[in-house]
């Protein structure tokens, strides 16, 4: 069973410091998660009931459409009961990412999920997962075509969210959510504003961001070298896909200014993407890493 120390609770409650951020692909998928575990024992059915209560999901928009066509942010927020966790876009060795399928009127465009950076969860047996605990808010850029908006007010958006929630045992979950955009401007509650701010604080900056510390990305043979001068701590979170580092457990988290990950068993030419979490000068920042494809064997 996972337990929470006071320090991890602190991180979760005040979110921004160490944990979250990134960009994604949940948009158009419609996976069907596995069935609920068989109730062969009372323990199993109790787990299913507990898991059902373990995740609260809610949709909200950052602001009402101020002017037709202005960009909006749609937020999908999860409250996760202590001890349970959901998964990032790359769940790691086990688990399954959260998926969302939207249904919106014509003229409403919802972009790909932007995922807060997760935590590394190390499980017995040298397993490494990328997970969220306590809470996470996925952000979706949204726009409404003015011409279409005029003919379909109010605008109602439906979302079908699916996930695997785990606390030792894993249970699939699913929720149908709906939101009708208000036609008048309503400011966000301070709590919702804070949830959005926390999520944004940990989204990765693009490589082109001029305010970023200089992050070095280079291949040395089949090893990806990431560096950031002056950093005290680096953590690499690889995106999902065929090219995964062989040694993310041992080498994906270091307390120095460079890390090296082996892609020896990855396919040549596979793209390598991920988020580098940098702790430097007392500040934690998040950077999108777009490395050149895995090079040929030296």
């Amino acid at each position, binding site marked *: 069973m996972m337990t929470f120390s006071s320090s991890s609770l602190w991180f979760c409650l005040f979110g921004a410091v160490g944990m979250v951020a990134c960009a994604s692909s949940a948009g158009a998928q419609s996976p069907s998660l596995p069935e609920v575990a068989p109730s062969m*024992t009372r323990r199993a059915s109790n787990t299913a009931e507990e898991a059902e209560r373990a995740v609260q999901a809610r949709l909200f928009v950052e602001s009402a459409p101020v002017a037709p066509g202005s960009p909006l942010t749609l937020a999908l927020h999860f409250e996760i009961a202590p001890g349970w966790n959901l998964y990032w876009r790359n769940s790691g060795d086990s688990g399954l990412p959260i998926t969302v399928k939207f249904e919106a009127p014509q003229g409403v465009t919802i972009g790909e999920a932007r995922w807060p950076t997760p935590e590394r969860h190390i499980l017995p047996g040298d397993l490494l997962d990328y997970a969220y605990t306590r809470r996470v808010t996925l952000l979706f850029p949204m726009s409404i075509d003015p011409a279409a908006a005029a003919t379909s007010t109010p605008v109602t958006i439906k979302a079908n969210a699916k996930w695997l929630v785990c606390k030792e045992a*894993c249970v699939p979950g699913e929720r149908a959510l709906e939101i009708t955009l208000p036609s008048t401007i309503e400011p966000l509650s301070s709590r919702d504003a804070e949830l959005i701010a926390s999520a944004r604080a940990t989204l990765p900056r693009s490589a082109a961001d001029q305010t970023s510390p200089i992050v070095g990305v280079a291949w040395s043979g089949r090893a990806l070298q990431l560096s950031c001068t002056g950093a005290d701590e680096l953590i690499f979170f690889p995106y999902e896909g065929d090219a995964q580092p062989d040694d993310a457990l041992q080498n994906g988290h270091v307390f120095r200014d460079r890390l090296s990950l082996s892609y020896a068993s990855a396919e040549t030419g596979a793209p390598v993407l991920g988020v580098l979490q940098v702790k430097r000068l007392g500040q934690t920042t998040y950077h999108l890493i777009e490395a050149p494809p895995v090079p040929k064997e030296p």
Partner: protein
Amino acid sequence: MKMTKNLFTTLALGAVVALGAAAFSSTALAGDKEKHADKPAKTEPLAKVGSAAPEFTLKDTEGKEVSLDQFKGKIVVLEWYNSGCPFVVRHHKKYNTMTDTAKKFGDKVVWIAINSSAPGKEGHGLDVGSKKEWSIGYPILNDETGKVGRLYGAKTTPHMFVIDAQGILRYAGAIDNDAKDEKSVGEKVNYVAQAVEEILAGKTVSQAETKPYGCSVKYGS
């Protein structure tokens, strides 16, 4: 025999390192999130595609000992198993992927499930019931110490391994290419069936390693 001895030496070394790490960082090994610099000791799995599959002897649900070496000359499929895991449920109840694939090859293939759930963890001690409920016709072996799971580097349930008639590990990874259960029948690739067919045809296994998906194997700390 020489190989067996080497395996045990490596295991013993691994255990010493693991104990050291446990003393240094009990939180990381207990499944909590990382908080500090010390890294967990990594015990390299000894199973490697292209090399001899590690030998093992475990007991089935009737208490009968089953060893890998008794099946030399046959293709052996290993299926990591935990009846409480939704992904295992998917392939034994929603679809009969495992049983159907095993039946497809009849006596050309020996199919064995292995449960590495530690005592007190999900799926431990439920094999007799689930074997009956899902009409599983092959043995489910008890690996509650996690020794064989760690030897093979089994990460998820299910996690599949295909061993050829000469005892060489030829495939390790997922049962299929549909982790999210979203693909149509035509889009699905059963990697285990594919590997067995290729071995039977005397071919190289085209996809010898894939990323397994599922629940984490419920090892003891």
